[in-house]
Structures are given as structure tokens and as C-alpha cells.
């Protein structure tokens, strides 16, 4: 079976606008969750994780600035970093590379701004509104910048968009449909309207995201992007590219249950299929970067799914959610979390489940997970999972392996 490896990565996140800074924040447990400077009235929450001081003018050309709104701009910047590190655009013909991104809500800031102008004063809508709000705009702009003419599309599966996108790209490279891919996810959902919409769901934390905590009270919304360059091991080695990690498995499932409430069978099936796809036994998994949103329902259901797959070992398996650091960037979360997972297996450290281990916050005993990482721990797992479980029961799990040559 053809092996697929990651040879480049880039990111624009609340905890770092390149991989080096993201890693530093991850190691230091430095959270990007802050009090909102500008927020709508009467919200039940006050914190988000935003990309502060993003230099859109520096990242984008004049032509890109006309079309790209914040979400697409994040994609352009993260993709350029991944291209520079990997060199895949120079290494392969443009028609043999794919661009597959996840994006759930598209150009939300443009849509809200134009809708307000229209409803308040009957103003005309800006003629570039359509290309700005398309969820696939980031994919198009990245393909145009790098002259990539192979398959290019955007996957939208709410909070699992990024993981689905990376999984599909992995499958396409593995089967030989393309030689390489730029894949990841981008999202910029933090508009007043969107924040109010989430407020209405009563799943956002009025304090701060504490996944798996006994006193958890919800997620913290975020924005950003992470992008990877992937290709076959054979060609990466032939051209002497640095290999960051190997993607070994991908599993998907649907709960077919409820539009917001999760159920354990779906997440468990996605984990099992990722393990089966990778031909690895549950015992070989040394770390799970959990979806871990910090909502009561997700963490309870995810814990149950982990128990179903890992049995007794669920109690000792190191698990953390890094959403307490970078927040929940909806469709982009899975890509950021894969980056955290790759850095963990490369850096011989397992990142803490931020938000826990502080003050009186303890792991929820009802979850029966005894090795939620209260602090960074040394560790060198050979295989790790990165899970994303979306509203509407759309589940995706990636399995990655440390590359030892």
C-alpha cells in the first residue's frame, strides 16, 4: 500500500501565525482565548479566540485583497507557508496536485455586512459579494496563486470539515489519483450575527473552555487556518523532502441521529474505521487529540465512544483536547488539531488539556478517563488519533504515525 506523508505545514491561529509560534504556544500552554474587544450586547459569553494583528496587507496581493475576505485570507497565508516548507509546487506538475480544504461557514463577515446595508438602508450589494462569501473561495484563490490545476474542492461538514478534507486528500494521494495535495481548513466565523446565533444554542462557555472537566460549561469559539502539504513517502524520499509525519488511516461515519445531539456509536465507528484503515490495533495508539469541545454532551459521548473502542485501556490512554488553547474554530478545528498532534508525536511531548488542572477544575469522574493530560507530559507515541465530531452527527478521525525513517 502506498504510504502518505506530510512534508509541509502552515497555520494562522489564535496561538501562532506560523508553525513555530503555534508549537511554542502549545508547549507553553499559552491560550489564545481572550475577552472580546468588540461584542454584541446581551451575549451570555464574553470570550473568543481570535487571530490578533493578522497582517492581511502583507500576506495578500492587491488582486487577492479584492476577493479574499478574512477566512480565505487565512487559507492563502497558511497554504503559502506549507508550500514554502514542502516545495511541492515546484516538485510536481500543477495538474497532479489537489487543493482540498474544509470550510464550514464561508465569508461570514462579508455576508453579514452586506445584509445589514441592504436591510437598514436598502443599499445595493457589493458586486464582489458572491465570490467573497463562497465557502470555496479559499480553495480557488490558493489554486490560482500556485497554479494548481488538479482536483480542487471544499468540504463543508460543520466542525469536522477540516478532518474530512485532510482525510479525502490522504485517500486521493494514497490511491494515486494525485501525486500531492494541499489540504487543511480555514474559518473566520466571529461576526456579531454568528456569535448571537451560537449564543442561542447555549453551548458556548460563559467562562472558558475546559474540555472533560467536571465543571465544563461549553466551548469557546475561534477562527484561523491550518494547511498541510502531503505526498507519497516514495516521492518525498526521492526528492529529499523533510517528513513531518505519516498519515496512516482515516475513518468516517454518520450518527443518523440528531442535528445537534451526538451519539456514541458514530464517533466510535469513525475511530474504529481509522484504526482498520491504518491496520493498527487499539493498543498501538499512544495519544488521542480529542474533539473535546468542553460541552456537556460532546465530552460525555466522546468518552463513551473511546471506552467502546479501547475498553479497559481507555482509562490509561493519554488524551487531551487542545481547544482550551486555540478554541473551537468550527471547520478549521480539525486541521489545527492535526497540527497539534503532529507536533506532539514529533516533539516527544503530549500537550496538556488546557483549562483543566487549574483552580478547582478536575476531570469529570463520570467520564472514567484517568489519563486526561492535566499538564504536558513527556511521551513518544508511535501512533496518535485526531478526532472531529460535527453537529448533525458527521464524524471523521485521522490516524498519524511518527516517522522514524
Amino acid at each position, binding site marked *: 500500500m502506498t504510504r502518505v506523508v506530510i512534508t509541509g505545514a502552515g497555520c494562522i491561529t489564535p496561538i501562532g501565525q506560523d508553525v513555530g509560534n503555534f508549537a511554542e504556544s502549545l508547549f507553553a500552554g499559552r491560550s489564545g482565548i481572550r475577552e472580546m474587544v468588540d461584542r454584541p450586547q446581551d451575549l451570555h459569553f464574553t470570550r473568543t479566540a481570535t487571530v490578533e494583528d493578522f497582517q492581511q496587507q502583507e500576506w495578500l*496581493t*492587491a488582486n487577492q485583497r*479584492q476577493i479574499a475576505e478574512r477566512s480565505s485570507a487565512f487559507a492563502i497565508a497558511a497554504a503559502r507557508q506549507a508550500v514554502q516548507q514542502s516545495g511541492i509546487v515546484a516538485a510536481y506538475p500543477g495538474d497532479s496536485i489537489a487543493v482540498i480544504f474544509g470550510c464550514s461557514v464561508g465569508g461570514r463577515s462579508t455576508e453579514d455586512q452586506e445584509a445589514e446595508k441592504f436591510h437598514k438602508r436598502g443599499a*445595493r450589494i457589493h*458586486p*464582489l459579494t458572491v465570490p467573497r462569501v463562497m465557502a470555496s473561495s479559499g480553495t480557488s484563490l490558493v489554486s490560482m496563486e500556485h497554479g494548481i490545476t488538479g482536483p480542487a474542492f471544499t468540504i463543508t461538514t460543520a466542525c469536522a470539515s477540516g478532518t474530512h478534507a485532510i482525510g479525502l486528500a490522504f485517500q486521493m494521494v494514497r490511491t494515486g489519483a494525485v501525486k500531492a495535495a494541499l489540504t487543511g481548513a480555514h474559518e473566520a466565523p466571529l461576526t456579531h450575527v454568528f456569535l448571537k446565533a451560537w449564543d442561542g444554542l447555549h453551548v458556548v462557555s460563559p467562562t472558558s473552555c475546559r474540555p472533560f472537566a467536571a465543571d465544563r460549561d461549553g466551548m469557546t469559539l475561534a477562527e484561523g487556518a491550518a494547511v498541510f502539504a502531503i505526498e507519497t513517502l516514495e516521492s518525498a524520499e526521492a526528492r529529499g523532502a523533510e517528513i513531518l509525519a505519516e498519515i496512516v488511516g482515516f475513518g468516517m461515519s454518520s450518527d443518523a441521529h440528531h442535528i445537534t445531539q451526538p451519539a456514541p456509536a458514530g464517533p466510535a465507528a469513525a475511530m474504529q474505521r481509522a484504526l482498520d484503515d491504518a491496520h493498527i490495533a487499539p493498543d498501538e495508539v499512544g495519544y488521542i487529540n480529542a474533539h473535546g469541545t468542553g460541552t456537556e454532551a460532546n465530552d460525555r459521548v466522546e468518552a463513551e465512544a473511546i471506552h467502546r473502542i479501547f475498553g479497559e485501556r481507555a482509562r490509561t490512554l493519554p488524551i487531551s483536547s487542545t481547544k482550551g488553547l486555540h478554541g473551537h474554530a468550527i471547520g478549521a478545528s480539525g486541521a489545527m488539531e492535526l497540527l497539534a498532534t503532529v507536533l506532539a508525536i514529533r516533539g516527544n511531548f503530549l500537550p496538556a488539556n488546557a483549562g483543566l488542572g487549574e483552580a478547582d477544575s478536575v476531570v469529570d469522574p463520570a467520564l472514567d478517563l484517568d489519563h486526561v493530560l492535566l499538564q504536558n507530559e513527556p511521551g513518544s507515541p508511535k501512533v496518535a488519533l485526531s478526532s472531529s465530531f460535527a453537529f448533525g452527527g458527521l464524524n471523521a478521525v485521522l490516524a498519524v504515525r511518527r516517522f522514524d525513517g
Partner: protein
Amino acid sequence: MNQVAEECIALIAKQKSITPEQIHLDSTFDELALDSLDRVSLAFDIEEKYDIEIPEEKLGQIKTVDDMVTGIEEAVRRKSATPTTNA
């Protein structure tokens, strides 16, 4: 050069990330590499700025910066000549 021309040139310069000195009244949109999206976007920005509407048929005839300035001035004149009604 009048104020409308200066403002028009400033908008184009910003849109194309070039200096105003590179733009002249007789510069054509082709010379300035303004594609169809650039043109509709520029027209929209101008209409917003002057609170005017340049008719579709007129937009199609605008090929140079000078044409654009003339189009804006005509639209502004039309607007100020339109009688207002007191309900």
C-alpha cells in the same frame, strides 16, 4: 486636475496597489490592467462614495480614467438636477 479626477485616481491606485503618479487621465483601463471584476468593483466604490448611480449602458462605454471622471460628473449633475418632492 479636479477633485473628482484626483479621487478617482486614488481609488484605482489603492485597488491596483500602484502609485497615483502611475495613473493619468488618458490611461486606459486595459493599460492599468483593470479586468472586468476590477471595473465593477471600482464602479461600486465610486457610486458609494458619490452616492450616485452610473447607468449600465454608460459603464460599458467607460474605457479611460477621463471617461470615468466624466461619467461621475454627469451622474452627480443628474442627481442634483433631479427635483425632490416634499411628501
